[in-house]
């Protein structure tokens, strides 16, 4: 009889196989290039993107773990994108568990293109202390927080609001994005801060004329840096964890996007290494599909 952990793993493998094999039409849009950093790209109105992001954690002490989140991103308006996340994790020798959910919204206040394009981000999350997705790093988060056994960590409930100022620029094929993060636990805890910075570029700027999977324009390469910035009372890099990760994105013509990012901790507070994976596809004009259901 399969254990619960095996069941979850089988479900994940089946989900991945479905994403890879699904014959979605070719008119699908590229996913955002980064894992942690946001750029100013909004979801197209009416489109729904379904994505799955596993992350393998390799701490210097403690057990290896898999964190994962499933993401549903919907373009409600040209200036408003809403996303819903379900988080989970599995720690070697311990257990697999659902760790909570997040609801985020991104708003683009300015129309048109500018040298720097701002986007405002607002998120509510209800997760527990065992969450290991590392979707953002704030405060003095460290590798020690991740070493707490699941049965203890899961008892801590984190209801938080998170705000980000996303700034993004596109220049000669390069994307440069900066995120400033402020997070507030709804209990009596001070504001916590963090940042993320990403730079990326497609391997070819012009598209080839024939449909192809391995054309250079289908690949993006880049790097992102992220880490904590302390709290309202102890602002700065001291005691924080910091990461750097080179990344590669591959967009298949059938609309499926694969991403990988080996991430390395830059100081003793950080995990030794993380390997992030990403699979996503987009359902174009999901709003039309839903309207058809109710017709």
């Amino acid at each position, binding site marked *: 009889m399969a254990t619960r952990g095996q069941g979850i793993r089988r479900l994940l493998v089946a989900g991945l196989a479905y994403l890879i094999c699904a014959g979605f039409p070719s008119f699908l849009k590229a996913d955002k290039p980064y894992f942690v950093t946001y750029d100013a790209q909004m979801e197209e109105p009416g489109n729904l993107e379904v994505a799955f992001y596993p992350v393998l954690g390799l701490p210097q002490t403690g057990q290896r773990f898999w964190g994962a989140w499933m993401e*549903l991103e919907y373009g409600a308006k040209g200036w408003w994108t809403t996303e819903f996340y379900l988080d989970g994790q599995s720690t070697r020798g311990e257990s697999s568990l659902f760790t909570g959910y997040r609801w985020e919204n991104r708003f*683009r206040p300015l129309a048109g293109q500018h040298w720097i394009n701002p986007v405002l981000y607002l998120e509510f999350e209800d997760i527990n202390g065992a969450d290991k997705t590392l979707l953002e790093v704030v405060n003095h988060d460290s590798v020690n927080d991740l070493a707490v056994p699941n049965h203890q960590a899961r008892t801590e409930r984190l209801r938080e609001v998170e705000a980000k100022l996303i700034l993004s620029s596109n220049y*000669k094929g390069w994307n440069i994005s900066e995120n400033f993060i402020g997070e507030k636990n709804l209990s009596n805890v001070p504001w916590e801060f963090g940042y993320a910075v990403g730079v990326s570029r497609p391997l070819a700027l012009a*598209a080839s004329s024939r449909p192809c999977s391995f054309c250079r324009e289908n690949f993006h390469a880049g790097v992102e840096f992220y880490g904590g910035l302390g709290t309202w009372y102890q602002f700065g890099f001291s005691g924080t964890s910091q990461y750097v990760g080179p990344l590669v994105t591959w967009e298949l013509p059938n609309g499926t996007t694969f991403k990988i990012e080996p991430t390395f901790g830059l100081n003793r507070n950080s995990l030794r290494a993380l390997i992030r994976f990403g699979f996503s596809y987009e359902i*174009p004009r*999901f709003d039309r599909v*839903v309207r058809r259901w109710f017709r």
Partner: protein
Amino acid sequence: MIPRVDGSSSVGRTGSARRVLPAVVASMLITSLAVAAHRPSKEDGPAAQLSKAPRSAQSLQNPFAGQSEAAAAGHKLFEQHCAQCHGSDARGLEHAADLHSAPIRDAPPGVLFWALRNGRVRKGMPSWSQLPDQQIWQVVTYLKALK
């Protein structure tokens, strides 16, 4: 109670289920709200949008002008990024513009480049600034080759 590897019991599992249920309900509610919020905006017409292009856009030169290879690449990009709203024949679906219409056919290439790069976010036309300039020019080349 079923003992588990992490020392917790089936009570913990029930607690987990209690947390999953609100999450699923919340996801359905949020999706419904977002879908309900999305109404395709009424298009003012491509002429109105193109008339807002700055003068500097009119003088931009298409580096791929008249190149059939670039038009073919532009067609591929159009299918990937534009056809879901404008249709594979570029005649426009629902509220999206007919790209064969006179204002677009007669617009200088630089103005079309500007329109693609900036989009019309409040009216539902996304900005394609994340595409490299070369790819936007390839789409413009394709639009100019439409018969």
